[in-house]
Every structure is written in structure tokens, then in C-alpha cells.
């Protein structure tokens, strides 16, 4: 109800903690970009709509990546939007490659970095066979962990490396995301008969990391639970466990439980209507109007508008052209 800590913080710290200035600055720069329209429309009204859309989480649509990842709220909003826009993919049971998921992400955020998508795919595939197909929900929950806890995971990778190398974890200086870059992501998977690192030691390091980190960390009680039930833990085993943990998903609050991922009666109805309408005209015409009108850009409509039409012909095509990269793929849309 009343958080005394909030009330006693110095002003700038309070504003920073709640990212007030991030949004205020963004609002002002958006206002400047549209200053002609805004002058007629009314400045107070512009601010009202801006903050309403931040509240609803629609403010990250089609924005640059640096803004999309700027605050935890933005990240959660992006995850939610991604889920809402593309859940029909999962409902259909379609399996897509990392490359294809990346294209979906880029529909919402044009400069979304491939690196993040790949990292998420590594969690699903346990760092193996990167061109494999993944189900929507597997990818979504792994992507959620990777995207929302990005900085935390960088530090975890570094800690893991140090533990593997047998360094004393208590003297480990947790690197910032930039200094962690050079030595992460090479956990040797099978050079050791005892795979991974000792779970309790790993937890101790993570706990102190969470205490110090200024970035979002998963609730340490849940991490503790996860690590106390096993003797040893590998890096990707840990990430996979994070991704599968519904408690962490709930604490994060962006996505529903795994079982409810595809429950959306309103959307179903809408799509039924639309399919009935479209099949009356011509199937999967690119000019058909979008189903999720609130959130979808017109250009991805062919993809979600025909949810009953399997996408495997696309997949085959991608699989055949081995060197297909994101340019060629996104140009198809």
C-alpha cells in the first residue's frame, strides 16, 4: 500500500527508479517529431495519450530496440505484444526456426538484434543444432527469460565460467554486461564427467549477484528452490529451468501460464469471423484486413490472418535455401 522507501528516496533517485524521466524524455522527443500535428491537437492531450499507451503497453510497437529494452515495463510490454500478435502460430502447432522467429520479432521492432533471438534459441535447443524447429511456447518462454533478464544472464554466464575454471567465487568481480562479453557462452558441455558446477555454490554466487545488481533478476527464492533440488547444474540447464519455471513467469507478469497461452475466446471468435469473411472472397489475399486490428501492422496480416493454413511450405523453402538470411526472409513479408 504505502511504501515508505519510495517516499523517503531523494527526488532524482525516485524518478530514476521508476523510469519517470525515461518516459518523459521520450514523450517530449515524440512530441517534437510530430510537432505540427501536436500543436493543433493539444499538448496536454498528446501527453495524456502517450502515458495512456505506456500504461497499456502499446507504446513499444514499432519502436527502436534501444527504447524497447530501456525499462522492465517496456520489455514486459514487448513480450506481451509478441505473444498476443503471434500466438496463432503456436495455436496452429507450427514449428519455426530461430530465423523465422526473428522475422516475427522484427515485424514489431525493425532493428531487433539477431543475437538475442539466437541466444533464446540456444536456451531451447540447449546450445545444440541451431537450425532446429521450435514450438511457439518453447521459444516464447525462453525468449522471455533471455530478453527480460538479459543483463542478469550475462553475469550468470561469467559466474558460471569462473566456477568452471575453479576460481573462488567470492572474489569474483561480477562483470558488467560489456566486460562479460568476451568470455561468455562457451560452457564446455562434455569435457567433464561431472557436468556443470556445484549447485549450492552456484546459488550463493547468484544470490550475491542479485543483491548487487541494478538490473532485474528473477526472484531469488525461486532460483534457490531450483538449485537446491539438484547436485550440479549446467549453464543451459539452468537457463532452461528458468524458462520453464511458471513461478518466474508469474512474477514477471507479462505472459499467462503456459496452459493458458492460447486461450483467447475473443480472438478466436474474431478470427472465425474473419476466416468466414475471407474465404467468401479469396483465401489469403495479401490485401485482406488484419485480425488483431489494434496491434497489427497491415503488412503481416497474411501471416496471421490465415491461421488454419500451415506454414510448412515456407519452412521447406527456408530449409532448402541453406544460406537464407534475414534480408531474404523479411523481404518475403
Amino acid at each position, binding site marked *: 500500500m504505502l511504501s515508505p522507501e519510495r517516499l523517503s528516496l531523494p527526488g532524482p533517485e525516485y524518478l530514476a527508479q521508476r523510469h519517470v524521466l525515461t518516459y518523459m524524455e521520450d514523450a*517530449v522527443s515524440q512530441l517534437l517529431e510530430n510537432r505540427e500535428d501536436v500543436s493543433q491537437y493539444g499538448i496536454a492531450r498528446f501527453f495524456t495519450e502517450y502515458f495512456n499507451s505506456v500504461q497499456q503497453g502499446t507504446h513499444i510497437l514499432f519502436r527502436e530496440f534501444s527504447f524497447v529494452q530501456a525499462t522492465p515495463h517496456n520489455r514486459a510490454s514487448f513480450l506481451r505484444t509478441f505473444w498476443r500478435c503471434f500466438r496463432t502460430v503456436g495455436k496452429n502447432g507450427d514449428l519455426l526456426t530461430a530465423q523465422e522467429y526473428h522475422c516475427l520479432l522484427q515485424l514489431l521492432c525493425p532493428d531487433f538484434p539477431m543475437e538475442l533471438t539466437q541466444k533464446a534459441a540456444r536456451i531451447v535447443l540447449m546450445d545444440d543444432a541451431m537450425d532446429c524447429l521450435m514450438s511457439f511456447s518453447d521459444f516464447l518462454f525462453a525468449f522471455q527469460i533471455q530478453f527480460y533478464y538479459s543483463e542478469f544472464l550475462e553475469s550468470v554466464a561469467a559466474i558460471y565460467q569462473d566456477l568452471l575454471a575453479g576460481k573462488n567465487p567470492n572474489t569474483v568481480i561480477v562483470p558488467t554486461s560489456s566486460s562479460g562479453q568476451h568470455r561468455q557462452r562457451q560452457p564446455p558441455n562434455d569435457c567433464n564427467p561431472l557436468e556443470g558446477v556445484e549447485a549450492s555454490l552456484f546459488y550463493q554466487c547468484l544470490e550475491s549477484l542479485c543483491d548487487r545488481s541494478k538490473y532485474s533478476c528473477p526472484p531469488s527464492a525461486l532460483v534457490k528452490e531450483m538449485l537446491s533440488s539438484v547436485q550440479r547444474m549446467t549453464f543451459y540447464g539452468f537457463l532452461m529451468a528458468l524458462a520453464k519455471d511458471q513461478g518466474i513467469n508469474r512474477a514477471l507478469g507479462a505472459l499467462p501460464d503456459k496452459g493458458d497461452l492460447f486461450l483467447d475466446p475473443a480472438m478466436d471468435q474474431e478470427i472465425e469471423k474473419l476466416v468466414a469473411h475471407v474465404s467468401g472472397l479469396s483465401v489469403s489475399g495479401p490485401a485482406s484486413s488484419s485480425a488483431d486490428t489494434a496491434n497489427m501492422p497491415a503488412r503481416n496480416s497474411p501471416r496471421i490472418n490465415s491461421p488454419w493454413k500451415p506454414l510448412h511450405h515456407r519452412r521447406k523453402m527456408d530449409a532448402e535455401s541453406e544460406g537464407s538470411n534475414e534480408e531474404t526472409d523479411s523481404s518475403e513479408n
Partner: protein
Amino acid sequence: MAAQKLPARAEVWSKMAAYEKRRAAAAPVPAGGSGLPEPGRAAPGGGGPTEGSAAEGSAAEFLLRAGVTAMVREALLKVLEARPAEPVSFLAEYFERLVLAEAAAEPPGPPQRLARALWYVCLAHHSHRTAFDSNAGAAYEVLGCGGRRRAAGVDGRLYSELLRRICQRGAAPAEAAAELLRRVRCRDHEAVPFDVFRYGVLTCCVLLEFAAKADALFAVLGAGDSADSRLCQAVLRALEDALGAGHGPRPGRYLEAGSRLGPDRLALAMDQALQERKLGSSMSREEFLRKATALFIAKVKPVE
């Protein structure tokens, strides 16, 4: 108006100013190094920015001219005063109010004035006393400015209505609210001076919080909607003792009340209550809340 009060705010402004500089990097307009300039100062021929006219697209100048700077400053001030847990929704609501206020060009009728006054009063928590006082002042002004010819002032009717609406926002039992209103009310056609107004408003806000805390206390004592009546009685007695404690100077009285309500004392009282081998009847949430708030109301000094 209150921009000079907190040194912390200066940093916010310098950040804003730095931001404006960044935006205006193309056109070298010094966007107010010392605090933010008033919107009026942007007029050509003002102190510093003479090059502003050359770079007609200057962002900083646009912001000043269009009143964005002033609006943003005012909004951030309100955020800092109120420290809401959800600043984004706070700001959305704040700007929406501004839109409504702008839309209502003619002097607003009593319902709008009441709504605006209520909004002001609830902007900041009452423990943030400076912010609360300044908001209460704003509410008083808004409420009193509706006259056709001149400032009409706040009469007893508007004042009572505002208090009634404040009380409706919380979980205080209706009897308690009614009794409180009886104690602090003024006659309908009486002009209400600001100190009475502030006292009434503040008391209502404190009552709401007291009721919320009592409710939380009850949740600890019992399960669901009933709790052991012996426990409740013991706690209520302790509360009564604490509220009635001491006659010395104020800080001492506060400390004494606090110590009487410390966990050890409360635990002792509750333990003793449970030792009495009476038949354990139960007390409902409503009854507990009613008794607890009655203790508070009894301490409210009536307005004469």
C-alpha cells in the same frame, strides 16, 4: 511556485535543460543553464537566445514557446510531491485532468470544482505534509473560485460535500465517517476559513488511513471475516491506551504511544487475553473496524 524548495529538483531541471540542449544541438540555443526559463522568456529580444530566430526549427524554442517546458515541469513537480507507486498512470491521469480543464473554458460549476478539488487533495499522501498542504491550498482555491462576479470562497455546503467524497474513497465505516463529519462540519452558509478547511480534509485523510490500518490489523488477528473476540478486545484496549496516552509535550506523547503499541506490549496483552478462560466468541470485521475507528473519532477535536 515551489521550484526552489527542494534542492533535489534542481537536478531534474538541469537534466531537462541538458536534454533540451541535446535536442537543440543543431541550433546553439542555450536552453537555460540555471533552472528552466519561463515560457515568456523565449520571445525574441529576451535575455540569451538571440540566434533562436535564425534556427527556426530549434526544438528548445519550440518547447518553450508551446508551453511544453512549463507543462512538463509542473507535471514532474506533482510527481515528486506525490511520489506515486505508479507514476505512469499518475501522469496519464494528471494530463487527462489538464485536457479537461483546458476544455472547460467557462468557469466550471460546483460538480467540476468539487471533482478537481478532490483530485488535488488526493494527489499527495498526507504524510508528505508540504505537498499535501500545497495541494490543499490549490483545492481550496479551485473550490472557491466559481463565483460569477468574484471569488466566492468556500462555504460550508461545498466543504462538507468534499469531505463526504473523501471519506467515500476509503474503507472507513459509514458511521465513523458520519460522526467525523459531524465533528468537523461548518454550517452550510458559513464561509470556511482555510485552516478549518485544511484541518477537515487532513482529518478525513487520516481517518481513511487509520481505517485501512485497522483493517490490516484485523486481517492479522483473524481468518476471513471473524476473529477471536478476546484478541480483538485486547488489541482495541491497547489502542485506546495508546491514543489516550500521556499529557506531556507532543514528541514525548508520540513516543509513549508508539512504545505502548510495540510488538512486545501487544503480544503480552494478547497473550493475557487468551489466558483468560472465557468462552471464545468471535468478532466480525465490521465490528472491529467500527470500534477501532470510534477510538480515533473520539480524539478528533470538533470545529467550534
